[in-house]
């Protein structure tokens, strides 16, 4: 080896070694929303690249009685919300949030997870049961004594935002719709990759917010795209966040197997949940260490809905016939969306809507971070993290707000009472405003 080669050699691109990239500059600490509000969390630099060097051993020797028999002795890492602001901000490229997530998983490996943490990861199970017993489930989740009981017994904070279960799952609604269309029009073949996109709807749409899917389908239809909804399971992010990696990997492989088939045929995979989509784009590889061909081909084919629409616009292909929406619209970009590194495509799209006064609140995190803010010991932190955001949303006087991730929407809506929608719902409203204006024009004639 020559000296020149030594100097030119690139760093090892693995989360496990990414502590090597840390220059100790503290930028991650300055952007951490959690460390800003609580001393319980010592900050991303401490639990990330600093502590990482102490975790390179195998297992603690038997002598360490009284200490957890774990490779990672730092428990404070569990206060990390996983928002990813640190990774996004690190000028040296340290995968801080990923390191923290892996460390949490190592800390919990080999032990039964807390029932609460396991349960929060079972979004498909909770959703299926909730939808099945919808009236009772919705009543129970709105019932204060029952919520207090859940708080005490399971540790889910009594005031944490929880959405209402919808009437049936979106998957079953989609199947019914396909059957109906088949009967009506006799369509059997899937449209090709030029004419359709594949939709990863995630759990929020499947169990709680089918209206987001309807909005996306309508907006895409307006632009000449059909939608394919393949069978799918939860992306696994709630499991990753709770350190339950084994089960998360099983979810990942199930989804990858289905989605890779489409990706290889040239389909784009779109999602309305910026966090599920980020999981598929990045975390299957960076956190779960799935580095096979499937993971890569799927990641490369996966897009956030607003990213896709803005790209259409950049190509001059977006239908910009939006009608006027004369309203204030505070917008919050979720941490997970920022981690995509695609800017704020929703804001660029809102700018195309006449009369819409959209304003980026420019606050880092609403606090909820998936399931973090639902936990009783972390609820207070989550609310403190999001407080300036809530204040600005309230102060705006707007009747609606917009945000790309579901748990953030629930958090903002829960804290402020302001109806918070997905950007595609706003765009659909703008298209409909145009239709209404056209209809009124036609009626006048």
């Amino acid at each position: 080896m020559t000296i020149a080669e030594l100097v030119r050699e690139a760093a090892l691109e693995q989360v496990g070694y990414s502590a090597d990239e840390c220059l100790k500059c503290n930028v991650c600490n300055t952007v951490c929303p959690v460390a800003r509000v609580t001393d319980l969390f010592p900050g991303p630099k401490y639990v990330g690249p600093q502590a990482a060097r102490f975790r390179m051993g195998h297992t603690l020797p038997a002598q360490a009685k009284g200490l957890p028999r774990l490779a990672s002795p730092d428990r404070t890492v569990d206060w990390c919300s996983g928002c990813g602001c640190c990774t996004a901000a690190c000028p040296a490229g340290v995968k801080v949030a990923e390191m923290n997530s892996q460390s949490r998983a190592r800390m919990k490996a080999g032990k039964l997870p807390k029932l609460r943490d396991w349960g929060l990861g079972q979004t498909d199970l909770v959703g299926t049961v909730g939808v099945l017993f919808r009236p009772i489930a919705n009543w129970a989740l709105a019932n204060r004594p029952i919520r207090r009981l859940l708080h005490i017994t399971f540790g889910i904070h009594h005031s944490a935002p929880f959405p209402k279960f919808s009437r049936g799952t979106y998957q079953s609604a989609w199947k019914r719709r396909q059957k109906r269309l088949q009967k009506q029009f006799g369509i059997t073949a899937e449209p090709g990759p030029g004419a359709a996109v594949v939709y990863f709807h995630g759990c929020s749409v499947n169990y709680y917010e089918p209206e987001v899917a309807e909005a996306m389908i309508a907006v895409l239809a307006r632009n000449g795209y059909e939608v394919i909804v393949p069978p799918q399971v939860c992306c696994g992010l709630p499991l990753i966040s709770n350190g339950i990696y084994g089960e998360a990997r099983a979810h990942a492989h199930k989804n990858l197997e289905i989605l890779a088939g489409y990706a290889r045929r040239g389909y784009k995979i779109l999602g309305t949940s910026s966090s599920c989509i980020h999981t598929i784009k990045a975390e299957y590889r960076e956190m779960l260490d799935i580095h096979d061909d499937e993971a890569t081909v799927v990641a490369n084919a996966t897009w956030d809905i607003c990213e896709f629409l803005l790209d259409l616009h950049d190509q001059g292909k977006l239908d910009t016939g939006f009608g006027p929406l004369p309203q204030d619209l505070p917008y919050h970009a979720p941490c997970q969306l920022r981690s995509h590194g695609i800017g704020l495509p929703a804001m660029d799209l809102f700018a195309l809507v006449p009369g819409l006064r959209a304003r980026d609140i420019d606050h880092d995190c609403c606090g909820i971070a998936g399931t973090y803010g639902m936990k009783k010991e972390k609820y207070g932190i989550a609310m403190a993290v999001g407080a300036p955001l809530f204040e600005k949303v309230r102060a705006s006087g707007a009747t609606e707000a917009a945000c790309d991730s579901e748990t953030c929407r629930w958090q903002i809506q829960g804290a402020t009472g302001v109806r918070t929608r997905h950007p595609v719902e706003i765009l659909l409203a703008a298209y409909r405003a145009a239709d209404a204006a056209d209809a009124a024009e036609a009626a006048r004639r």
Partner: protein
Amino acid sequence: MSETRPFDVIVVGGGATGAGVLRDLARRGLRSLLVERGDYGTGTTGRYHGLLHSGGRYAMRDSQAARECIVENRILRRIAPASIEATGGYFVATPDDPEDYVDGFPAACAAAGIECEEIPVLQALAREPALNPKIRRVFRVPDGSVEPWNLIEANLADARLHGSEAWSYHRVVGFERAGDRITAATIRDESSGTTSRISTRFVVSAAGAWAGGIAALAGVQLSMRPGKGVMLIYNQRMTDTVINRCHLSSDGDIMVPVHTVAILGTTDVRVADPDSNEITREEVAALIGEGEKLFPDLRRMRLLRAYAGVRPLYDPPDDVGVSENRKMSRAHSVIDHGERDGVDNFVSIVGGKLTTYRLMAEDTVNVVAARLGVTERCTTAGAVLPNQVQGKTYWLGHRLAEHEAQGGGDAALICECEFVTRPMLEAYLDEHWPCSIDDVRRGTRLGMGPCQGGFCTFRAAGLVSERGAGAETDAIVDYLRERFMGTRPIASGRQLQELWMVHGMYLGSLGLESLVDRGPASAAVEVPNARR
């Protein structure tokens, strides 16, 4: 010059050997004094790769050294567990290692009494995934790593408990002779510059590679043959096990996980001056080139610094045939200058290695005791050192775990990389003041992580200044100069960026440039291509 009351024995040199000799003398009832020109463990002891030998490295060519290693290895695990991490070691056969050496290795280990077990390659790779997947065979041996400064402190503490003394920053500047005996030593206090005369009945030189100079003060000719070894420190432990190449020891063939880092060793070049610690870029590149045979991704891992130590190899006059340092015996010799040079109460202990420091001390003190008519036998192998918990060896996560147990958080951290807290630093200063930040480093690991003192030096300097106003600037400059010196030979990639960032913080943001220009320290904080 002041006169201090006499000591039975004066030990020159505060490395592991000197500390071990002092402990042994003290336990045999000889009230002794150790003098060290700098801080303890600043010579070879503090500049080696940190290996607790199983003896495997010597099994094939120096059976005596191998046997001594395994015996002492077991003793040290028992008497000094706090200084030892029982990492275990692998000898791995890469495709470059000769078949016959590999085939003969287990038998040679067995002959020397070293537990050696061949394990499946896949099992080794599962435990150490950074290892070269092309390795053919793996042998497991009881290697470990040793924290040298901690070990010295424990030996000195035991010696003090038995009535002896140790003075750091005290240099022997002369011996008084009366005929065939040394009657007294002249010792200069390096901080105050004052000298004192101390009468003694016996002198032991445990100055290692510097033993020639000490012998010269007594009018004796002793030619040492210092062998310089360069070592590289990696930011993280890419291995949790000591990894050796299974071949005749050579350059860049061992990786030792020590504390938070991993150390790649070593080279062996004969040098004239034991204080020579220059490291060239070529040496660094060559080491990495060899190290890659063990860890293929090595050159993409972050290097923190390079350092050099000198082996205290002895060149016996009758051993003229040996030319290559590597082939010289790593066993030790007690040189009795009475028989050899006509100085009756003077011995030098030379050669050897850290793993056998206790045995070296025992052999030396046996000679001293015989001369002084002391009949007490050596007890250092049986007695556990002070402040040890039996069976409780060091483990990597302990600082993080202890800090977390006390609430964690970074508010109390002075050195973030190595988790040195303010109470730890204050305790060290209470015990050792006056001392330099570099002494604090050896005692606490302050500044030994990736930022190499960037974020802790100014904090530590603040604490130092509370004890001696005005000392802080010099303290910062001296310390950073030392830290930067080790970074220069390897500075590339992130470590170079780190160096520039730290440079910017101190010379730019903290305005140290204007301060250093005023004082004698203006020669400066050295950084690559610094504009001056």
